[in-house]
Structures are given as structure tokens and as C-alpha cells.
């Protein structure tokens, strides 16, 4: 396995595991911004982390080889008539 693939897989696994915030399970406090219970604020932050994770994937693991795919369907134009 290439190092890049290994690191990305590990990163994905870590982000997945971080979703299970068992340490917040029975906690309501602190109230983030004075009104968001910690469990809800954490999971909201997790959504932002997920977006950052996706940005990393798009940047370093984008399937470039698919960008120049051409249609191999010969009769498509005839079908469009």
C-alpha cells in the first residue's frame, strides 16, 4: 500500500471514530456560545471536520484518470434524432 493511501485511510478511520464521542454522552455542559449543549456543539463541529476531510480527499485523492472519459456508445447520436 502506498504511503499516501495508507495515510488517507488512517485519516478517514480516525474521523469516523471521532463521531462516537462517548465522553460527551451524559454531559450537557459546557454550553458552547452560552446556549449549545456540548454534545450538540461537538457534533456540529464534526460536520465541519467532515467538510474539511472531504476537501483533503478532493485535493489529494481525486480520480484524475476519470476526467477525460469519452463516450463509447456509437449510436447515441442516432438515438437523439
Amino acid at each position, binding site marked *: 500500500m502506498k504511503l499516501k493511501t495508507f495515510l488517507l485511510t488512517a485519516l478517514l478511520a480516525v474521523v469516523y471514530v471521532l463521531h462516537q464521542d462517548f465522553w460527551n454522552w451524559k454531559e450537557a455542559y459546557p454550553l458552547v456560545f452560552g446556549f449549545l449543549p456540548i454534545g450538540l456543539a461537538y457534533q456540529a463541529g464534526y460536520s*465541519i471536520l467532515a*467538510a474539511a476531510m*472531504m476537501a483533503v480527499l478532493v485535493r489529494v485523492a481525486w480520480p484524475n484518470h476519470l476526467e477525460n472519459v469519452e463516450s463509447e456508445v456509437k449510436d447515441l447520436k442516432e438515438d437523439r434524432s
Partner: protein
Amino acid sequence: MIPVIVVSIYLVIIGVIGSLAFRKSKANTEDFFLANRAVGSMVFFLSIFATNMTAFAILGSSGQAYRQGIGIYGLMASSSGFVIPLTIFFIGTRLWAIGKRFGHQTQVSFFRDRWECSAIGTVIFALSVAMLVPYMIISIMGGGRVLTDISGGRVVYPLGCAVVALVVTANVFFGGMRGTVWVNVFQTLLFLLFGAVAVAVISHSLPGSFGDYIQKIATNPKTRYLVTRERMPERYFWSYTLIPLSSIMFPHMAIMCFAARRITAFKRTVVLYPLAILAIWLPCVFLGVLGSQLEPGLKNPDGILLHLLTDHAPVWLAGILGAGIISAVMGSDTHQVLAVSTMFTKDVFAHYGGKAKYGERGSVHFARGFIVVVTLIAYIVALITPASIFELAVRFAFSGFAAMAPVMIAALFWKRSTKYGALASTLWVAGWLLLTWYLQNISDASAPGPGKPPLLIFPALGHLFERTIVNVTVYGFLPVVPMVFGSALCMIVVSLLTAPPSAETITKYFPGRKSESSGQGAETDQAFEQLAARGR
């Protein structure tokens, strides 16, 4: 009356956008079903998001938060915000490329070609339709209920359902995929704004601050569970991370992936998706929890947002926000109707000779006729059948489609996968759906009340099957867990025991493998092709 007028204006706008799309349409199926595979980047994001967001994202999320508290956000929203973009990234992009290369317009068409078998496509088609149609019906029911609630009962339920069914039918009938995605742009923007506006308006109207109300909930032992997850079992919470695998397997989501103009359209979508979920779900969940204090004792907590808006927002704004809710309903419903029509036209009508006999134009006529018939039937069923039946079916559908994800992953990434592996997985999923349905039915009468421990369904089997207030569980996990892992296992074991597809098909779908590999890799490919040849 003002909310009804505002919603009516919204429906007229939807109709106008649909008719504009109709003017641009051509009489071929690729244009009708996939907007000529020319959906641009931003429209693609807004549309695929609308495809996946139903009324549940607004009404259901706040209703569940009212009942269960903040845990519902982590349970359904943040897990979806991670898993759904991942599936779009890994599966959606590959589906797009395969659709573009070989002209596939549905998953079933891909499976048939990939595994050189018409029957496997038909089996998956039957299961997919059985799981999708209840979802479509419940969307019409949801839309009807929302229109009735927003109008304060002036629009009766059958009329509300009829309006939703009619607008959806007209939109899909005339505009096809193009009309659907154009309307989605407007709809998604509207419901993305919904949450923030609702929070701002309600906070402005309350005598106390949000913090005061949350403090009150957190310090009361009877309501404290609403701001923690102390009543939410951890196994249940983890099980839910598998449910979003269903998203890409829903036919309307997969079909959307075929419609993008370029693969780069997926980039923006995967990054923005978690943030869009955050924008909708966080305010709705928060307001649902808050609603338990502001409007206690509601018989139907799914209406909590409508209650809050009625009490705390000016009527014209309540109308606009109501239109936002209707948008969420219609956005997904139009895609579901279009997907069912696409599947019947391509996977049944065209596949079994209809296209050869009647041509592309005939296929589009068939699709339009089918749209009218299927929404009419859905409307009638919505009126005469209790919603609970379909709510249950939809819950099962999410588990079922999630458990079909290994089939798609194998088709795309594992060249050794076989049609028998796919068949075994599909039968495993269908079997579990029937088993869960049966267990649910026999345990309904003995389901424990809120806060009570789960009940053993068969005491002799110990904790294997338990019944909670709502669900059947398997050793405390949701049925989706054995369904997904069992489906993957079926695919692996049965594929390894049966002959792979021909080398020609393998080369067709994995063209780069041979040329990219060298040395040992090339030998492996050669050995594989020999194996494939023996299999034939």
C-alpha cells in the same frame, strides 16, 4: 390565509420553471431522464442535495429532537454529513464515468452489463422498486399534511395531497430531469435559508434567551435527557452510521450521478454537503429541543416547527418558511417519481423490446404516461392507507438500500465479483427485510414504553432479537448491521465460489488495470483472465 397565498405563489413559480425546462427538452430518453448529462457544478450540488433531503430533514428532525433530544443530530445528521459525501466521492464519480462511457442511465442497466446477466438486474430492480415506492407515497402524504397544517385546516388533507401530486407530476412530466434540477435550485436555496431564518425570528420573539431555556432543560432531571444522550444506547448510535450508505443506492441519487456534465461537478458537492446538512439540521434540532419547553405536551411533535412559526413569526414569513418545508417535500418527491419512471422505462420497457419497437420518442411517451399513472396510484394509496405502514416500509428501505451498497462497491471495484455473489447479497437483504418486518409485527403489542428497557422477542434466544420502543434490534444493534456485513460476506464468499464474468467484460470495466500493472501484477491479471476463460 396569507400562508396559503404565499405557498400558492411558490407553487406557481415551480410551475413556471418547469414549463421553461419543457421548452428546452428534446424527444430522447437521455435528455428526458438525465438532462442530456449536462448538469453544471452548482446546480448539481443543489439538486443532489434536494434529492436527498425530504420533509424529514425539517419536520422529522425537529419532531425527533422534541422526543429524544440533541442526540438525533449525531445519530442522523453528522453521520450522514460524513458518509454520504464519501459515497458520492468513491461511488458517485465512478458511476458517472461508467454512465458516460457506456450510456447507462440506471444502476440496473450497469449491473446487467457488468455481470452479463439480465436476471440479476431484474431481481435488483424488483427489490429497489419495492423499497422506493413507499418512500414516494409517504412524500405525497407528508406534503398533504404540511399543506393542511400551514393553512390551519383550510386545505383539507386529500386536497393537499392532490396539490403536491399534481405539481410534482406536472414538473416531471413536462420538464423531466431538466425541469426537476432547475426547480431544485430554487427549492434548495429556500430550505437552506429556512433554519437560520427560523432561529433568528423565534429568538427575537422569545422573552428569555436561548441559554436560559437550555439551562432550564439541563437542570430539570425529567428533561435533562434532551440535552444529553443518556437515553440513547451507544450500539444504536453506532449502528446508525451505516444507514447513510443507503443514500447512493437509492435509485434517484444514483441516477443524479449520471446527470453531471463533468466529473469535476462532484468536487464542490462532496465538500459542501456536510455544511449544507449542518445548515438545515442544527437549527431544526435545536428548535425541536427548545420546543419541548415552549410548546410542551404536543401529540404530534413533528408539527413543532409549524407551531413555533405560527406563534412566533409574522404570518407572511410563516408562509415563506412553509414554502421552504414544501420545497423539501417536493424536491425529493420529484426525483423519486422521475427515478421510478426512468427505471420502468429503461430497465423494463426498453430492456424487453419496447425501445426497439417504438424508438426513443416512444420511450419518452411511455415514461410520461407512466409518470401520470404512478403518481395517480400513489395519490390514491396515500388517501386510503394508514401512514404508519409506509413509515415502517421507509425505515426498512433505508436499511435495505444500505445493505445493497456492498453490491455496488463490488461491481465497481472488485473485478472478481460475480452475478451469483450479487444475487446472494440481494436475497440476503430481501430475507432480512422480511424477517425484520415479521419481528416488528409480532412484537408491536409488547413494545416497551419510553425509558423502559428492551424486551426479549424470543426469550429462548437470549438477547439475539430485542424490541425497543420503536425498533427491533439484534444484540442491541439495528438490523442494518447484520444486513450490511452479511451482504458483503455473501458477495465475497459466493463470488469466490462461482465463475467470474468474461475477460472481455472485465477488460471493459477495468481497462487500466492490465496496462498499469507490470511484473507480478501483470501475471496476476493473466492468471485472472485464464480463470475467467475456464469459468466460461
